[in-house]
């Protein structure tokens, strides 16, 4: 090992995020003290993000298999079969911490990273979604974060050329110090042309592709002591800088090189860059890897081996190439103006050997780097059950009409047009249902098949009851896909939580995973990929537990996709599913009564499955003209959204046995609103299928009228619905100036 590297001290170990026990484990594993570079490699492989050391034993309980699942968790992304020789490749991933530090670049590189995960597997990306959680709108940083994150997501996706078709966005004071940016990418590949990361064959060239390596993203923001030199030039922030132009070139070059049959294995350089990708490719293939860092294309001079191994520069790939195709592959990369360098090869000895400047910087057992990472069974306490709040105990502070007007213009329920209009959601010309519906619908190639895509979670439910909240996130995704006429196929999960070393946070994580597993099993809705983001807390206060579920469903014919807009006057409005008037943890209770209390609505998975199946057959048989899932805000908010879409009003009446505010705003699960020309046919079927269906009223006019209440003008509702977000974003302050990310992007 080289002698000019810093000596390993307990402080240095701690700065690498390794505990003394973990360091002992390293020494025992390799039989000696690690070199500085080796310490860096271990810290990259054994951190929470790469090793899943706190969540692993719980994630193992999730259902991941189904006849249509081609690849479950463990690869760059999950893969499912949609027939016709085609596969869908998808995953969701967080970029929370970087987005809080530098919202434009943090969000942009989040999108870039997840797109790479998808096209690494040989798929052409066809859609992106995102789930965003921000702090209280009144918090001084929130507006700046919203502006930067949205601009960053748009800036990357628009330039790369993938439509951003859907997502969700919420505000809550518990995200004040930690916003969440979860990005999902979906691609289409030929089923028999999926590419994986496991290397095979000894002596095969390891090729570096894409952008050059720089000092961005190196984990050691806290490492700026003597080892890095004292001058500020080298104290770069740990947030990476995205270049969607390079990524677009990388996409085209990778797909071309794959089509030409040059590739044995491929892995994108994401978290922990070169280290993680090289180790994974070797370890998965039961092979060793040697790397010659002198061959790595660098953006700046004088980079140390340590820096190269830990750089998280974006838009880079590692590939094991068929030796005879090296020239053809190099020509393709030159055509696209990208770097291409053979930087190592596979070896038979299962060692990970890194040399730089003629010296060996690291020589480690490759399998153990991943396999022997610590796994923790952290102590946890289950979330304390909260009392069920009886509707009768909640006194309505205002009329039904007033409450509706207030809710529809609230931060969580208002239109998100200000956001999705900054995303190109129509590029590629396949967007059947644009943002704003229950789920986005995107045609597959020339059709007739289409995918339905959604991202869902209700964090306040998860906080109140982790298990039921986990179930609800999966059930809502299932419902949203069913509502547009799709058959739900599989999901990706992005688990965002606080510090797992605190038993109550660990309890939330465990509870949510159990709930997700229970629902996924009951609904035949397996988890095929995912990501865990822990330590989302500031000053000891954690975010709301936020296990975002990204759902993918299939429509056999995109022309049969269903929307929630009322289509015509004089149609019957029906409620599918049972209503008890559950106000605990509802938006009505929170935003109208000012109480964040009680148990969340329980999720009856059998009812979810039955009611969704029932609605699916109604859509298939052409018996309904509009379908809308009921979620945040309850029945009346769902009706208002249906009415506002094409400005067709309705007259509706409440069931008599439940207090009016609980009936209209309760958030009981497993429910839909549908409209139909012939209600009797549906009621007949419902009776046969034992599905509760209730007549609510009929469409027509330009007002929404609840019997016995003041009629609400649709124009007033629309003004509130569309008004809040643009008005908020135009608010005080000079945050807009910072939108483009501190001058790092043109």
């Amino acid at each position: 090992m080289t002698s000019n590297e810093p000596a390993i001290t307990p402080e240095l170990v701690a700065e690498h995020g390794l505990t003394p026990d973990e360091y002992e484990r390293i020494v025992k594993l390799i039989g000696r003290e690690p070199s500085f570079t080796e310490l860096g490699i271990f810290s990259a492989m054994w951190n929470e993000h790469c090793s899943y050391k706190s969540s692993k034993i719980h994630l193992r309980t999730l259902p991941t298999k189904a006849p249509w699942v081609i690849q479950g968790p463990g690869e760059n992304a999950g893969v499912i079969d949609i027939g016709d020789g085609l596969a869908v490749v998808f995953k969701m991933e967080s970029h929370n911490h970087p987005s809080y530090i530098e919202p434009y670049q943090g969000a942009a590189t989040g999108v870039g990273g997840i797109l790479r995960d998808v096209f690494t597997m040989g798929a052409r990306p066809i859609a992106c979604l995102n789930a965003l959680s921000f702090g209280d709108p009144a918090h001084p940083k929130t507006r700046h974060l919203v502006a930067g994150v949205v601009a960053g997501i748009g800036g990357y996706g628009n330039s790369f050329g993938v439509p951003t078709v859907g997502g969700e966005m919420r505000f809550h004071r518990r995200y004040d110090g930690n916003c969440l940016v979860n990005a999902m990418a979906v691609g289409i590949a030929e089923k028999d042309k999926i590419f994986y990361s496991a290397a095979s064959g000894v002596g095969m060239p390891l090729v570096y592709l894409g952008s050059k390596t720089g000092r961005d993203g190196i984990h050691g923001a806290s490492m700026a002591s003597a080892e890095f030199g004292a001058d500020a030039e080298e104290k770069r922030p740990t947030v990476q800088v995205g270049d969607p132009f390079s990524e677009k070139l990388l996409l085209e070059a990778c797909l071309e090189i794959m089509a030409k049959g040059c590739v044995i294995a491929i892995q994108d350089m994401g978290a922990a860059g070169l280290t993680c990708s090289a180790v994974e490719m070797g370890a998965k293939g039961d092979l060793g890897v040697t790397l010659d860092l002198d061959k790595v294309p660098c953006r700046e001079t004088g980079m140390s081996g340590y820096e190269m191994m830990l750089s998280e520069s974006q838009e880079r790939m590692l590939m094991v190439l068929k030796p005879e195709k090296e020239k053809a592959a190099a020509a393709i990369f030159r055509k696209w103006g990208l770097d291409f360098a053979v930087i190592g090869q596979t070896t038979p000895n299962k060692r990970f050997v890194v040399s730089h400047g003629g010296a060996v910087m690291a020589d480690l057992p490759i399998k153990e780097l991943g396999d022997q990472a610590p796994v923790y069974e952290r102590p946890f306490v289950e979330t304390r059950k909260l009392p069920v709040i009886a509707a009768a105990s909640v006194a309505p502070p205002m009329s039904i009409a007033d409450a509706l007007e207030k809710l529809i213009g609230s931060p969580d329920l208002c239109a998100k047009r200000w956001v999705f209009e900054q995303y190109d959601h129509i590029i590629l010309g396949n967007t059947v249902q644009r943002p704003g519906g229950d789920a986005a619908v995107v045609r597959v190639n020339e059709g007739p098949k289409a995918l339905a895509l959604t991202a869902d979670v209700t964090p306040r439910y998860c906080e109140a009851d982790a298990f039921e909240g986990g179930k609800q996130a999966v059930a809502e995704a299932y419902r949203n896909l069913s509502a547009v006429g799709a058959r739900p196929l599989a999901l990706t999960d992005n688990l965002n939580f606080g510090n797992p070393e605190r038993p109550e946070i660990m309890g939330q994580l465990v509870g949510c995973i159990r709930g997700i597993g229970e629902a996924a099993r009951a609904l035949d809705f397996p988890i095929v990929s995912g990501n865990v983001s822990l330590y989302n807390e500031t000053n000891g206060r954690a975010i709301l537990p936020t296990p975002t579920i990204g759902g993918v469903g299939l429509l056999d014919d995109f022309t049969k996709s269903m929307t929630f807009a009322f289509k015509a006057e004089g149609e019957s409005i029906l409620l599918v599913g049972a209503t008890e008037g559950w106000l605990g943890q509802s938006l009505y209770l929170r935003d109208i009564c000012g109480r964040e209390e009680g148990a969340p609505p329980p999720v009856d998975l059998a009812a979810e499955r039955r009611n969704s199946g029932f609605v699916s057959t109604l859509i298939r048989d052409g018996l309904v003209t509009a379908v809308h899932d009921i979620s945040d805000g309850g029945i009346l908010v769902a009706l208002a959204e249906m009415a506002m879409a094409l400005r067709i009003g309705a007259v509706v009446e409440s069931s008599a046995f439940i207090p009016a505010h609980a009936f209209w705003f309760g958030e009981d699960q497993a429910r839909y609103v549908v409209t139909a020309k012939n209600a009797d046919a549906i009621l007949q079927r419902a009776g046969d299928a034992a599905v509760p269906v209730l007549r609510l009223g009929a469409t027509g006019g330009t007002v929404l009228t609840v019997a016995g209440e003041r009629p609400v003008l649709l124009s007033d509702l629309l003004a509130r619905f569309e008004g809040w977000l643009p008005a908020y974003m135009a608010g005080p302050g000079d945050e807009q100036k910072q939108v483009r990310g501190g001058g790092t992007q043109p």
Partner: protein
Amino acid sequence: MKSAVLVFPGINRERDMARALRLISGREPAMVWHADTALPAGTDLVVIPGGFSYGDYLRCGAIAARAPIMEAVRKFAQKGGLLLAVCNGFQIACEAGLLPGVLMRNAQLRFICRDVYLRVERSDTPFTRGYNAGQVIRVPVAHGEGNYIADGETIARLEGEGRVVFRYSSPDGMVNPNWNHNGALNAIAGIVNERGNVLGMMPHPENHVEALMGRTDGRGLFAGLVDHFERAA
């Protein structure tokens, strides 16, 4: 109609454009790489599609305007060949001097993707013969820099010579600031050159050619071009 679609690094709507041309002309367009120096023999229509050529670095369209293929495109246009330049294509055509003026950042400084209404100002060009003058069509925009501007003299000439062919308008054809999403001068959405054979426009007619997108108002532009070449043949 034999069409050729130019592909610069970072262009990303070339597939949308190729599909529209294929669907309406019944013929697969040639995809022409930026480093090439000649257009395919017998090309009737050259299209510069939308996207982010060279990542919009330096200035939108500035680098692509100097690509090797552009010399052939310039000669093609000089001989009267038809050139359709959409979105980033419009920016490239302006940077290449094929059209006057520039596209600045949208007035409210944000990227905007939405359907807009365009009033078709004249129907006697090869690009707009599929529409009636005064007709209002609905097509999407998706751009951050579509705010058209030129000096007063140029604008006066464009207007005087009837070279503004598309204008942002309300659904019933009224031009006013509420319906001009990017702040373009005189609500200009599309212009032609002096000879009338080069059209630059910010909106994307190629994205509204199939019923699945909600509208098919973009078809008229391509159908008109096909008709133009059939009559000429």
